[in-house]
């Protein structure tokens, strides 16, 4: 067993930058490179992509990422772990092996981890309660697109145990993607709560990559929030030891910053009760966590505690829920806001005249109230952009929204310009249900390795 392992975050969301992962790999700065690329809705989108093309259904940037990092990772013995498998981990593994072979890396093996997909279980249990609406899942079954359980570190470990250089999963809880490699490398058991706590807090801190190292942080009005080298923010690296001691840092020579301030913002990111952050591996308690600066861009993390893992696993159920249509048009100069408001009224009147109705409609004045609504401070901008968006189960009604906004170029108040291309998108709604752990059967398929 190792005494410690270095784990780097190569991506913090589906569309994240690619260069920081390459820099870490080329510098041989990590033992494991983790790409977290799966937001709540992503799998449903990928299910739809796979229905059109059986070989699709995984992260659209998987090929670009693998093209970039496979070679330096192979050279330095760096293993790759990612949930880029999305709705098709085996397809993702196949694509990865093809890229490896094209680069003369025929020995690279890729493990696809499956088992998160539980649509059949959900279909067979229409009485399961949706946690958000309190309705039985039956109500959304006809429109259900996907149902995937959040797997834990054990799913990642199952992939790593095959010895494959690359492990690709579907839905795995974000911190578990990082905890799994630590448990595997350091020989931790699944009941060792003090170590699981430290490994889970590590994963939680790293899962959004640059958000720990100066991303989402700079505020030009506050010198305390200066972020150097923002064009080249380095991704975070954790060094976690067999005893659970944990230090986080970033690649030397990169931009960004990592200190108590950036780490505190990320420690509580998307956390509700800090004493009970639920993951499939444990219930993390952050109450006594401390973040101690031990050097430039270097922070020791202490004091994480954990309670045993929950009995049930959370499943995200995604279902088609109508359409959102939207459009934008701009006004500037004297009376810009008044003309935008008049345009909004005309668009709404025309939609009504055409007989369309909407479940919900929203009018934004970008530059005044689009982000903070009625809580916005007073402003009298020189220019303003009108945005109208509406949700409906009728695709034609959705398409009419952007169409009528666009018509403001010729049929609206004076001086309206810069109309957007009308847009209609499918609404993919998400709710959660809980299922017993035994419903999930983890499977591993290893591809590649022909040298």
């Amino acid at each position, binding site marked *: 067993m190792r005494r410690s392992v270095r784990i780097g975050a190569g991506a913090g969301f589906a569309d994240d930058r690619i260069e920081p992962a390459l820099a870490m790999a080329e510098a041989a700065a990590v033992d494991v490179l983790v790409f977290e690329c799966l937001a*709540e*809705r992503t799998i449903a989108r990928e299910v739809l992509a796979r229905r059109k093309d059986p070989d699709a259904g995984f992260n659209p940037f998987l090929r670009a990422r693998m093209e970039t990092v496979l070679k330096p990772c192979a050279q330095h013995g760096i293993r790759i772990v990612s949930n880029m498998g999305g709705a098709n981990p085996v397809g993702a593994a196949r694509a990865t092996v093809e890229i490896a072979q094209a680069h003369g890396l025929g020995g690279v093996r890729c493990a696809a981890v499956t088992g998160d997909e539980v649509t059949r279980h959900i279909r067979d249990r229409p009485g399961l309660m949706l946690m*958000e609406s309190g309705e039985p899942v039956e109500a959304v079954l006809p429109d259900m697109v996907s149902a995937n359980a959040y797997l834990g570190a054990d799913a990642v470990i199952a992939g790593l145990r095959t010895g494959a250089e690359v492990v690709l999963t579907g839905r795995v809880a974000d911190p578990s993607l990082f905890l799994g490699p630590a448990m595997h490398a350091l020989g931790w058991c699944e009941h060792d709560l003090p170590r699981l706590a430290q490994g889970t807090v590590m994963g939680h801190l790293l899962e959004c990559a640059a*958000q720990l190292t100066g991303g*989402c*942080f700079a*505020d030009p*009005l*506050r010198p*305390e*929030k200066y972020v150097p080298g923002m064009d080249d923010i380095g991704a975070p690296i954790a060094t976690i030891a067999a005893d659970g001691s944990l230090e986080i840092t970033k690649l030397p020579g990169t931009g960004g910053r990592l200190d*108590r*301030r950036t780490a*505190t*913002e*990320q*420690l*509580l*990111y*998307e*956390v*509700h*009760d*800090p*004493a009970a952050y639920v993951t499939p591996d444990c219930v993390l308690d*952050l*109450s*006594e*966590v*401390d*973040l101690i600066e031990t050097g430039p861009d270097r922070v020791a993390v202490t*004091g994480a505690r954990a309670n045993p893992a929950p009995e049930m696993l959370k499943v995200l159920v*995604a279902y088609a*829920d109508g359409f*959102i249509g*939207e459009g934008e048009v701009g006004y500037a100069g004297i009376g810009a806001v008044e003309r935008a408001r008049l345009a909004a009224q005309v668009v709404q009147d025309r939609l009504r005249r055409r007989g369309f109705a909407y479940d*919900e*409609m*929203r009018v*934004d004045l*970008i530059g005044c109230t*689009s*982000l*903070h*609504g*009625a*809580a916005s*401070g007073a402003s009298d901008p020189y220019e303003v952009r009108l*945005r109208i*968006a*509406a*949700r409906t189960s009728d695709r034609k009604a959705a398409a009419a929204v952007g169409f009528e906004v666009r018509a403001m170029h010729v049929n609206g108040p004076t001086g309206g310009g810069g109309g957007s291309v009308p847009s209609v998108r499918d*609404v*993919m*709604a*998400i709710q*959660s249900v809980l299922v017993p752990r035994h419903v999930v059967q983890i499977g591993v398929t290893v591809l590649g390795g022909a040298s």
Partner: protein
Amino acid sequence: MIRVHDLAHARAGDKGNTSNIVVVAYDADGWTRLERDLTAARVEATFAQLGAGAVTRYALPRLHALNFVIQDALSGGVARSLAIDPHGKSLSALLLTIELPDQETQEP
């Protein structure tokens, strides 16, 4: 007049229709002030203008941080929301605009 922005920095995260905003004091004095005056009720009053509901506050004194969990703050949640910022990432900036009462007028 002092605003939260003078004392602290903040980050917003989303889960379903719930926003959480962490507020971190720059120094110990700021922490004392925030812990006393930046109540859940004060945050709730500001976010009610967006149609948000109940606010729960968690304090982490060791880190000089407050975590506000704001129900129904995201226009139905990322998936169905018509908002231009469905994740509510910009809501941290709204929290930083909140004005705190003058210290002199505080009850003892």
